[in-house]
């Protein structure tokens, strides 16, 4: 699965984008966050304030209880500040 990071989440992870193998046990966005946190210290630090992170699956906003289903891309980012 392709994972993208934006703004301070990107800075903390230290990557704009990565492709990961999603374990079979990972069914929802919340599971995916748990898995990413286990990868290394940077990921753990990026997801430390979990409530402050928003997520999109295939470029659509979703909540953390959303099922990953057949999504090809997940993106993690802080609350948006455009406009």
């Amino acid at each position, binding site marked *: 699965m392709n994972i*993208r990071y*934006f*703004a*301070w989440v990107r800075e903390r992870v230290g990557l704009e984008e990565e492709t990961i193998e999603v374990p079979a046990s990972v069914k929802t966005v919340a599971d995916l966050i748990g898995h990413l946190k286990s990868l290394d210290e940077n990921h753990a630090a990026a997801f430390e304030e979990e409530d402050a992170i928003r997520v*999109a699956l295939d*470029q*659509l*906003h979703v909540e953390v209880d959303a099922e990953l289903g057949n999504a090809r891309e997940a*993106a993690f*980012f*802080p*609350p*948006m*500040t*455009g*406009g």
Partner: protein
Amino acid sequence: MKVTPVVRVQSEDFDVQLESRALAEGRKDVGALVTFTGLCRDEAGTLSALELEHYPGMAEAELTRIAEQAVQRWPLTGLTVVHRFGKIPPGENIVLVVSASAHRRAAFEAADFLMDYLKTRAPFWKKEHLVDGDSGSWVEAKSGDEDDAARWSS
């Protein structure tokens, strides 16, 4: 017939006059044209630029989804949304909404709705760059923005 909104995400500046004229020129059914321009501001004199990061693809898609909601909700004759990305110094344009309708209420409300939804849902993030050369912090989302957006779903 519902209009098709024009949505653009670009690094270059936009021309407010040109975009307004495009929604009114050559037609007689437009009675109201509202333009909203959001600019980069610096109240403290410490900002050299705001850097607008965006999620390419989703930014256009989400702005289009919001604009489509607006044309479903109000009887518009035209709607244009332009959002810039990249480094933008104080005084320069960031975002433009132009809404056109037969009557003013629809045009005002659609532009207001667009901005409220865009603020909380369009994937853009602002980072401050300071005049002393430091990279400042990421601009934090305001809880008031969520409240503004919630006004439209009651």
